[in-house]
C-alpha cells in the first residue's frame, strides 16, 4: 500500500514543480523580388514548447521546436522540405554554492552587438528557418562553471558537430546555385564526434565606467565552414557538402557603459590547424548604442552604429567570398524606438552597407502585444546585392519581402 501511495504521489510532486510555457506562431511572407524558380511566398506554422523542472539546486529543462511549411502539405507543388520537429535543448543542471555542472543538449549565447554576433559560435544555425531570424541547433555538451564575486570561469566540452539540413531549392532562402544538390552529412577533418574544448572567463569591473568582458579560447571545430564538391577534372559539380576543420580560436566580447552609451566590441582570431583550403583569419566588430529617453509617453529611442571587418591572412587560400562571409567590411546603422506602452510595442530598423562590394540590406520590424496573450510582428527586408562580385547575397539575388507573424503565448 505504501509503495502504491508513493508511486501515485511522486509524479504529482514532480508535476507541481513543472513549468510549462511556449508559443504557437503563424508566419507568412511574400517575396516581392525573388528569382523566377522560387516560390513567391511562404506560410509556416511553428510551435515552441518548453518544460522546466526545478527542485532545490537541480534544474531539468527541455525545449522542443516544430514547424510545418504549407508547400510540404501539397501534392502538386514542389516541396520546400521545411517541415520537421527538433529537440533544441534537453539538459540537467546542478548548482553548488560557487560552482555549477550542466550536462545535455543546450543553446548558449555569446556576444554584445545588435546586428550580428560574430563570436556567437557555439551552436550552428538551422538553414530551414527564415534566414533573417536566427534559429540555433542545440548541441550536446558538458559544462563546468566556477563563480567568483564578479566573474565566472567555464570549461565546456562540445561533444559533437551536428549536421545542418537545408531546405529544398524552391524555397527562397536555398542559396546554392540551381541544379546543385546539398548533402547534409557534415564532412570533418577528425570526425564529427571529435570534442571541441572551450575555456571561457567573463566578469564585470567595479569601476566608474563598468565593463562587462568575456574571453574565450577554443580548441576544436570552427563555426565557419566551407563547401566541398564532387566536381572532377572532367565533370561539373552536382553536389555541395559542408566541411568542418580544426582550429585554435581566441574570442572576446565586451560592453563598456559610459553614461547613457554602450560601447561594444566583439573580436576573434583563428589559427587554422593544417588546412589546405582555409587559412588563418580574424573578425572584429565595434559598436556604439546610445539611448535617448523621454519621448512622447515615456518612449525611448536607441541609436546604434556598428562596423564589421573580416580579414584572411593567406592569399593562396579561400577568401571571404568563397567562405560566404557577408560582414567582411560592413557598416550597420540602426535605430530602435520603444513605445514603452502597455503592449510593449517597438520598431527596429536599419541599413547594412557593404563598403567593399557595394551591396545593401534595409530592414524594418514592428512588434506589439494584443489581447494579452498574442503578439503580432510585421517586417520588411530589401537586399540589393553586389552587381559585379559573386557574394552570398548575389547568389540570393535582388530580394524584397514583407512578413507577418502572429503568435499565441501560453
Amino acid at each position, binding site marked *: 500500500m505504501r509503495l502504491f501511495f508513493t508511486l501515485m504521489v511522486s509524479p504529482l510532486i514532480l508535476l507541481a514543480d513543472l513549468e510549462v510555457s511556449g508559443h504557437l506562431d503563424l508566419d507568412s511572407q511574400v517575396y516581392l523580388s525573388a528569382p523566377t524558380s522560387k516560390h513567391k511566398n511562404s506560410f509556416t506554422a511553428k510551435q515552441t514548447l518548453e518544460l522546466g523542472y526545478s527542485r532545490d539546486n537541480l534544474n531539468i529543462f527541455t525545449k522542443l521546436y516544430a514547424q510545418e511549411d504549407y508547400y510540404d502539405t501539397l501534392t502538386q507543388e514542389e516541396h520546400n522540405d521545411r517541415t520537421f520537429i527538433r529537440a533544441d535543448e534537453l539538459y540537467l543542471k546542478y548548482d553548488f554554492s560557487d560552482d555549477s555542472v550542466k550536462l545535455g543538449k543546450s543553446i548558449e549565447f555569446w556576444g554584445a552587438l545588435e546586428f550580428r554576433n560574430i563570436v556567437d559560435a557555439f551552436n550552428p544555425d538551422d538553414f530551414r528557418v527564415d534566414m533573417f531570424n536566427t534559429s540555433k541547433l542545440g548541441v550536446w555538451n558538458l559544462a563546468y562553471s566556477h563563480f567568483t564575486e564578479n566573474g*565566472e570561469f567555464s570549461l565546456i566540452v562540445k561533444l559533437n558537430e551536428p549536421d545542418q539540413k537545408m531546405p529544398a531549392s524552391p524555397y527562397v532562402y536555398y542559396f546554392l546555385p540551381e541544379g546543385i544538390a546539398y548533402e547534409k552529412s557534415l564532412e570533418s577533418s577528425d570526425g564529427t564526434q571529435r570534442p571541441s574544448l572551450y575555456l571561457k572567463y567573463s566578469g564585470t569591473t567595479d569601476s566608474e565606467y563598468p565593463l562587462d568582458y568575456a574571453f574565450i579560447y577554443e580548441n576544436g571545430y570552427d563555426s565557419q565552414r566551407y563547401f566541398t564538391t564532387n566536381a572532377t577534372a572532367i565533370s561539373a559539380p552536382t553536389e555541395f557538402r559542408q566541411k568542418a576543420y580544426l582550429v585554435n580560436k581566441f574570442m572576446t566580447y565586451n*560592453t563598456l557603459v559610459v553614461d547613457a552609451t554602450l560601447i561594444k566590441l566583439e573580436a576573434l582570431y583563428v589559427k587554422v590547424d593544417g588546412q589546405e583550403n582555409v587559412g588563418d583569419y580574424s573578425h572584429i566588430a565595434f559598436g556604439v548604442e546610445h539611448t535617448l529617453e523621454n519621448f512622447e509617453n*515615456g518612449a*525611448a529611442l536607441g541609436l546604434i552604429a556598428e562596423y564589421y571587418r573580416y580579414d584572411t591572412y593567406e592569399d593562396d587560400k579561400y577568401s571571404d567570398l568563397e567562405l560566404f562571409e557577408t560582414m567582411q567590411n560592413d557598416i550597420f546603422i540602426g535605430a530602435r524606438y520603444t513605445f514603452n506602452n502597455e503592449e510593449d510595442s517597438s520598431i527596429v530598423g536599419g541599413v547594412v552597407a557593404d563598403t567593399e562590394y557595394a551591396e545593401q540590406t534595409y530592414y524594418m520590424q514592428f512588434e506589439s*502585444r494584443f489581447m494579452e496573450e498574442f503578439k503580432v510582428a510585421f517586417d520588411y527586408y530589401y537586399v540589393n546585392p553586389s552587381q559585379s562580385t559573386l557574394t552570398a547575397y548575389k547568389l540570393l539575388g535582388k530580394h524584397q519581402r514583407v512578413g507577418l507573424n502572429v*503568435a499565441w503565448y501560453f
Partner: protein
Amino acid sequence: MMKILTLLLFAMSSLFSLTNYEAAQKSEAVMSGFEDATSQMQMTLVNARGQEKTRTMKMQVLEGKDEDKSLMEFLTPADVKGTKFLSYEHIDKDDDQWMYLPALKRVKRISSKNKSGAFMGSEFSYEDLSAFNVKKYTYADKLDEVIVDGVAMYKGESKPVSKYSGYTKLITWMDAQTFLIHKVEYYDRKKKLLKTAYFEDYKNYGDVYRIGKITMKNIQNDKTTILVWSNEKIKTGLKAKDFHKRYLKK
C-alpha cells in the same frame, strides 16, 4: 478623545520640531533592517478609459548599507515570462543593470543613466522603484506639520541629487508618529505636477515596515499603475552571491 489627544501631542511636538532631513532619516530608518525580502508583485496598468492590464513578477531584494541589490523575474504576460532584471544600486555612481532575454538566452547590459524611463509601460519610472535613500536627495529646511484625514503628517520638499532624474521636486507627506510615507507628489522637469503616489497597506514585521501597495496616478495623462506586494518574507537568509549574474540564466 484619542484623536484629540494625538492632535494635541502633535501640536506640542512642534516645540521640539524636526528638520526635513531628520524626518527623512527617520522615515528611512523605519523601513530599514529587513536584511532581505522575497515577494510576488502584481502590477495593474489602468489607462485613461479605465481598462486594466495585469503583470506579475517575482522579487528578491538584498538590503545593503547604502546599496541594495534586486532580482526581478517576470511571470506574466506569457511572452515575457522568464525575462529577468538584475540591479545593483549605487549611491556614488550609476547603478549596474542587466536584463536576461530567455528566447535568445542573452544577458544584456543596460545603461542606467536615464533614470526617468517608464518601467514596463507603467507610470513608475526606474527611479521610483529603486530603494529610498536619504543621500539621493537634498532637503528644504522647512517641514510643515499638517493634518490629513485626521492624521498628523509631516510635509516636506526634497530635490533629487542626480541631474538625470526625471524630477525637479518631490513633496512628501509622512505619518508624524510612524514616519511612514503616505503620499508623494512628483514634479517634472518643467516643474509641473506629473504624478502622485499613494502608499498603503504597510506590513509591520516588528522592527521594520514593508510597503504593501503603491498607487501611482499620472496627472498629465490620466493613467494609473497599482503595485501590490504579496507573500512577502523578510530575513530569509539571502546572500550577495544569490544576486550574482549566474542567477539571471537559472
